[in-house]
C-alpha cells in the first residue's frame, strides 16, 4: 500500500477536514493507517502536487482527533499488537472520560473509514462493556437503546 514516490511529487502531509470545519493535518505515513477510504482517495489523487483538503463529512473533529491519537501510538507497535492496542484504546477513552456513546461514534467512524484494526479493538471493548451490564435494562440505558 505504501509506495515510494519521487520526493518532488508526494506531499508529506495530508489535510483532512471533518464535518465541523476543522482541518487535521496528518503525516502521510499515518494517513495510510487511516483506513481504506482515505487511502482510496489518496490513490486517486496520485500525481498531484499537493492535496487539497480531503473532506470527511461523516466524522466530527473530536472523533478524528481521537483516531489520530490512537494511530500515532499504535503505529510503532511490533508484537502483541492486539492486546497493546486495546490497552491504548482503553487508556485514551479513560483519559477523555468518554461516555459509551462516544465509543459508538468511534465505531461508526472507523467503519466508514474502513479501519480494520480499530474496528476490531473497538468492538472488543464494546463487547466487554456490554458484558459488565448486569441486566438488559442496563444495556438499554447505557447505550440509548429503545425497547420495543
Amino acid at each position, binding site marked *: 500500500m505504501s509506495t515510494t514516490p519521487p520526493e518532488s511529487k508526494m506531499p508529506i502531509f495530508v489535510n483532512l477536514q471533518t464535518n465541523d470545519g476543522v482541518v487535521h493535518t496528518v503525516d502521510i505515513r499515518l494517513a495510510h493507517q487511516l483506513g481504506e477510504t482515505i487511502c482510496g482517495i489518496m490513490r486517486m489523487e496520485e500525481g498531484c502536487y499537493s492535496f487539497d483538503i480531503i473532506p470527511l463529512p461523516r466524522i466530527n473533529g473530536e472523533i478524528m482527533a481521537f483516531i489520530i491519537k490512537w494511530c500515532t501510538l499504535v503505529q510503532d507497535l511490533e508484537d502483541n499488537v492486539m492486546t497493546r492496542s486495546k490497552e491504548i484504546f482503553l487508556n485514551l477513552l479513560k483519559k477523555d472520560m468518554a461516555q459509551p456513546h462516544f465509543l459508538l461514534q468511534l465505531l461508526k467512524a472507523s467503519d466508514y473509514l474502513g479501519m480494520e484494526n480499530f474496528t476490531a479493538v473497538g468492538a*472488543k471493548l464494546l463487547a466487554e462493556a456490554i458484558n459488565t451490564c448486569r441486566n438488559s435494562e442496563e444495556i438499554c440505558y447505557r447505550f*440509548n437503546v429503545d425497547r420495543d
Partner: protein
Amino acid sequence: MSLLAYVEPGESSDTEPEAEAEPDALVDFTAMLRQRQREYGGWFGCGSKMQAEQSDQGYYLEQYVLGVLDFSSQYGIDYSISYTAANVIGRPTKFPAYGDYPETFPMVSRSGPCRTVRSEFPFNSRPQRTYGDWWQRAPSATREIQAQNLPKLATHDYIVVYFEEFVVPTEVAIFETFNPGAVVRIWAYGLTKHWTCLWEATESDLARPALDSRRFAPALKKTTMITKTLRIDFNHSRLNYYTEIDAIMLCGRTVSKTQSLLGRQQRTKQSHQSQRQALVSPPAEAAGPPAPDGSGGPISYKLRTLKFQPKCHEDGATKLHDFINNDLSQFLMEHSVEGGEPPPRVCLTDLPFEILLRILSYLDLKSLFRVGQVSRTFYDISTHPLLYAELSLKPYWHVASSELLCTLARRATMLRKLDLSWCGALGNVSPTEFKKFLTQRGDNLTHLRLNSCKFLNASCIENVGIVCDNLIELSLRNCATDPPLLNFSCLANLKNLERLDLFQTAFETELLLSMLEGNRKLKHLNLAFCGVSVNMDNVAAHLATYNTQLISLDLWKAHFLSARGLLSLTRLHQLEELDLGWCLREASLGDGLFQLLSNCPNLKKLFLSAVRGTTERDLMHIAALGKNLEQLDLMGILNITHERVYDILVHCPKLQLLDLSFCDNIMDRDFDLLAEWSHQFTVDIKTSRRY
C-alpha cells in the same frame, strides 16, 4: 469409575439426629454455647461430628465426606487406592503434615522387596492429572470452544462429594496437604435441585499460598439453602506441581424439619425457574411484550435500582397520590437529566449490522441472551446463526438443561463446534433432548466434546456415530460405566477423526481397533486410564499400521503394554508427544526406547513416569538423541544418577521441564546441585525434596 449411590432426600435412611438429650439439662449449657459460637464463629477443634446446641432449628454439625459422586480426573486409578478421588472420604489422615505421600510402589523385584519400600498408604487425593501450564504447552493441547464463556479463573477439574446430613452450610473446609491453592470455586446442591456457588476465587486469592499444608475455609456466601452435596472446582494453572487434598469438611446447621423446608424451597424454586426462563426464552417467542421486568426507560430503571416497589394494598392509590403530590417533584429534581446540550443520541443500533454482529460475537452466552431481551432489533441480531457456530455449555454446567438445548437448537443452524462437557449431572439434561439436538444440528459438527456428560447413554453415542460423520475431533473423557458405553459399531462410522480423547473411559477394544483402522488421519489419541481390559500391544500394532500420522499419544496407566508394543510405537515417525507413565512396569524396554528416540526426531514431550525398566543406557540415549525434548518426566526411575541428569541437561537444549520425583538414587545431598542446575540451564526440575 464406580459411582457411589446418591441418596435421594426423600428416601434417605433418615438418620436420626444425634440422640436427643434432655432439654432441661441442656438449658444453660445451650445458651452458653450459642453465645460462644457467636463469638468464635466456627471450628471447634478436632472435627468430630459435634452437637453444639439443639434448638428447633437443628444443631450445628461438622462432617466429613461420605462418598464421591463424580470427578473430572484424578491421578490414580479406581481399583487402586493411590491418589484417587476416594481418598478425600472421611477424616483427614495426613493433615497437618505436608508432603507428597506416595503409594506403595510395586517395588518387588526378582530379588525381593527393594530397600525403599514405603508402607504408608496414600491418603491424599490428587484431584487432577495435570499441573501448571505444561499440558497447554504440549503438542496435544486443545483450544477451548467459545472461550469467551469462560470465567477469568476457568475450572480445569472438579470433584463432587456428598455428606451424610443435610445442613445449611456455614463453612466448607478443604484440607490441602500438598501444593495448596488450586481451589477456585465451591458449589452446593440444594433441595430444589439447583447448584449455588458458595464461594468464588478472586484475583487476590490467587497469590500462591505458602508451601505448607492448610485448612482452607474461605468465607462463604450467606445462604439459607440446605445441602449435603458439594462440588469443588480446581484450577491448576498456577501450581508448581500436583495438588493434594486430604479431606473436605462441611459445617452447618442441620434442619430437623426437612419436609416443611422442602415446601418452602419449592416456592423459591418456582421463582428460580422464572428467572431461568428469563435467561432462556426470548421475548418474541411469547409473541407479546418483553419480560415484565423490561419495560420503560431511564426513569423506571432508576426506580428499580432504588428498589422502589409499589405494593398495591387497599391504600395503594392513596400512597401513589401522596407520592405524586409530595415526593415526585423532589425526585425529579434529584434525578433530572442535565440541562444544556443534550448528548448526541447515538444509539447502539445506529451501527451497521456487521459491526454489531462482530461485537456480539465477543460476548459470552449469558450476555448474548441478555442483549437479546433488549429490543426487537437486538433479538434478531443476537439470534443470528453465525453467533452460534461454536457453542460451549461447559461453563454453564450448573444451569444447562434440556430447555436450554432446545432453545439453542433453534438458533444454531451453522453449528460446527459443540462442548457439552460436565452438563447434565443429576438429570438436568435428558438423553432424548440431546439426541434431538444432535439430529437437528449435528451433521456439520467438526468438534464435539462430551466429557463427563452424565446423560450419555448407549443410544446417544450411537447417534453421534450416525449423525456426526464430519467430526474431526471427538472427546469422550470420563464416560466410564459398566458395561462400557463404547461398544457398538456406530462410532466406527466416523472416518475423519484427527483427535480422539477417551481419557478415563472404558471401551471395547474391538471398537477402538476398527476406529483406528478407519481414521488414517488420526493425529492425537488419548487412552489414559482406559482400564484393564485393553491389550495395548494390539492397539500399538494397529497404530503402527494404520495411524502413522500420529503426533501425540497418551497411554498413561495403560495395562499390558510390553516391549513389543513399544517397538510397534517406534514406527510412528511423526510422534511429538508420548506419555507412557506407569506402563511397562518392570519390564525391560529392550532397545525400544533407543529405537523410539532414533525414529522420532520430533519428540518434544516424553513421560516415563514409573517406567522402571528404564536403564542407564536408556538415559544416555535420551541425552544423545533427545534434541527436541521440551518436557521429560522420569519420576520414580531408579537408575538415575545426577551424572545422567547433567548429561541430559547439557545435551537437550530445549528442555523446559524435568520431573525427577521419587528417583531414589538421587540423594538428598544432590538436591542443592539440582537446584543450581535448574537455574543454570533454565529448566524446571521437580524433585522429592522434603521441606
